[in-house]
């Protein structure tokens, strides 16, 4: 069987494993991103390339060590450099002396036939019903993961025993990853959702509500964003992540085909501060921050990789949003040089700031920030 791999982004390896297995190839899952992954990637990547590109390369090298024969990578169009990652990475690997096949999947907007030819060539199970079954199963897993994560962030801020939700989440990921049959998948999800709802919580507090915005990779991948959702959650902060993998697929891949105007609402919300789609999630960052201000969230945290163009554009708009709508924000720029201690100090100080502001407004009770996480 052909051994196929793909780069990490958050928990998407779980649906991708299912997808590849159903299509009749052997998935090779990259080992979790560690310091080693990062240093392998940065060694062959250009210094000023964005951070995700370097991590992808690290993933590829580590999977080639495990015997991967082909890399699946998404492509795209637009101002963000991501659209060209696949091609650039192919060249970089070639220059560095690695020999591996590369398949770049683009949204089937312009050349549907080409995409179909590629799929037919590579995957043994490519009959329409195979494809539908594989996509459906993978989609169900992705959707269940996102449902769980949404609720997990909410419960984590209120859990009585610190770490309980994160442990449950890790077990859920593992078991869902193992589940093959549809019945099994549904049963695992039901069981863990029940357990999550039963986690003992404190009722006497109104946790700070913070929105997480920014570049999709940094937001979705806990191993590079210093597990920010978990860290904040365990400080007692209700984190609302604004980007989910399934949402991204729905909007960027599907809606863009049948509804060319799908960004209209986002543009309207961000309008006073940013008038164009600037690529990546730049527009989303501004729009979600405006929404957070209007809906009286306590704060916004923006995550961006170093040299990320769309997020840099968004960053220029945020001071005005923050001032007009009285919403505090913190920007964290992450690359291979980011130090955990510095990030933690800024997060703690930001959460302190938010809880002092909440108290001075006479809002609900929050928890004392526990340092040291």
């Amino acid at each position, binding site marked *: 069987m052909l051994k196929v791999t793909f780069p990490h982004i958050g928990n998407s390896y779980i649906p991708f494993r299912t997808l590849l297995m159903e299509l009749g190839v052997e998935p090779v899952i990259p080992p979790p991103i*560690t310091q*080693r992954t990062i240093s392998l990637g940065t060694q062959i990547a250009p210094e000023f390339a964005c951070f995700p590109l370097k991590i992808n390369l690290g993933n590829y090298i580590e999977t080639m060590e495990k015997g991967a024969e082909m890399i699946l990578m998404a492509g795209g169009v637009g101002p963000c450099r991501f659209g060209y990652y696949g091609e650039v990475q192919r060249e970089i690997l070639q220059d560095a002396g690695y020999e591996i096949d590369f398949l770049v999947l683009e949204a089937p907007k312009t050349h549907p036939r080409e995409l179909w030819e590629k799929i037919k060539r590579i995957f043994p199970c490519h009959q329409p019903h195979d494809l539908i079954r594989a996509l459906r199963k993978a989609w169900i897993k992705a959707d269940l993961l996102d449902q769980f994560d949404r609720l997990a962030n909410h419960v984590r801020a209120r859990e009585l025993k610190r770490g309980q939700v994160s442990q449950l989440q890790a077990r859920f990921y593992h078991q869902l990853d193992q589940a093959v049959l549809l019945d099994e998948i549904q049963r695992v999800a039901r069981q863990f959702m029940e357990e999550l709802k039963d986690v003992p919580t404190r009722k006497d507090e109104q946790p700070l509500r913070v929105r997480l915005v920014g570049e999709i990779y940094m937001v979705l991948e806990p191993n590079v964003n210093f597990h920010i959702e978990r860290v904040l959650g365990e400080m007692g902060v209700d984190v609302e992540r604004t980007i989910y993998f399934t949402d991204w697929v729905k909007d960027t891949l599907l809606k863009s085909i049948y509804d060319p105007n799908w960004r209209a609402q986002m543009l309207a919300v961000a309008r006073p501060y940013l008038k164009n789609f600037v690529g990546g999630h730049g527009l989303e960052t501004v729009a979600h921050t405006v929404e957070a201000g209007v809906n009286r969230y306590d704060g916004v945290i923006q995550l961006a990789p170093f040299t990320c163009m769309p997020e840099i554009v968004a960053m220029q708009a945020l001071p005005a949003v923050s001032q007009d709508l009285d919403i*505090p924000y913190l920007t964290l720029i992450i690359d291979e040089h980011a130090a955990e*201690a510095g990030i933690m100090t800024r997060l*703690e100080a930001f959460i302190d700031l938010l809880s*002092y*502001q909440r108290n*001075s407004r006479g809002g609900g009770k929050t928890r004392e920030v526990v*340092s040291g996480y």
Partner: protein
Amino acid sequence: MKLFLGIDVGSVSTNIVVIDSNGQLLDKLYIRSRGNPVGSVQQGLATVLKTLKGHEIAGVGTTGSGRQLIGTLVGADLIKNEITAHAVACLNLVPDVQTIIEIGGQDSKLILIRDGIVSDFAMNTVCAAGTGSFLDQQAARLNMDIGQLGDMAAQGEHPVRIAGRCAVFAESDMIHKQQMGHKIEDILAGLCRALVRNFLSNLGKGREIKAPVIFQGGVAANHGIRLAFEEALGFPLIIPEHYDVMGALGVALLARDKMLISEQPSAFKGMEIVDSAIETSSFDCDSCANQCEVIELRQEGVLIACLGDRCGKWSNRVHFSHGVRETVQVG
């Protein structure tokens, strides 16, 4: 009398202050850490506790980059990040302060305060140009005392232009200007201006710096930097009397507030810390791919704390083995 301790373990210095329940500063200590935070805290506590015999230590707070380690070691009642600690100390001193400029050993911070609470802050990211360590290094290169460097800079009448964007380039630029024959006072004055420019453009980005401004941290002792800031901003800065220990003061005030409300006894371990042998060691945990660097803290050979693991595998272990002398080195 009930006394409260604040300990700020920074990159360059370890500061300890003692306050009473009115917030009056009774004693302060500024020790160079010299890469040994545990030793300098032991040494500092020994000095402080000797003068405080007979008084009750009712609360202890730690801050600074070593806050976690030292907080665990001494039994702190409160562990707080340095940004909040600095803001609290300033607000206590000048209630209507609007802006705080803090430049320490390797950190520089800009904290904006509106209506008596922190509204925004920024910290230097990758570059340490303009912080105390860089000035220290330049003073050493010019073979002068760090205090002397500031005074000489203040005497510069025609500051030369120095590139302050990067510590290495700034240094080569200074050497170049020396070799061109510029007076050292003018070069140092130019350096101060460059560093201030760097600070304002990096941290001040889009932020409104309003008076009153408090300037603190070790570098506040440098007249050259202070003058350059006043020139750039157009108004005088307030330099508090205890500018060098404001972080420690802030965390002592926070510890006092917490302990006076909770009425619990302090967790402070007291003299026991000073007299015992403290060892730290570290290892890479290889249980999972995170490969956390775990730090073990031992007092008289007994494991008292594990820090740095994400999953809690090692830090939880301490609760079980507390007080029991271990025979096997784990890890």
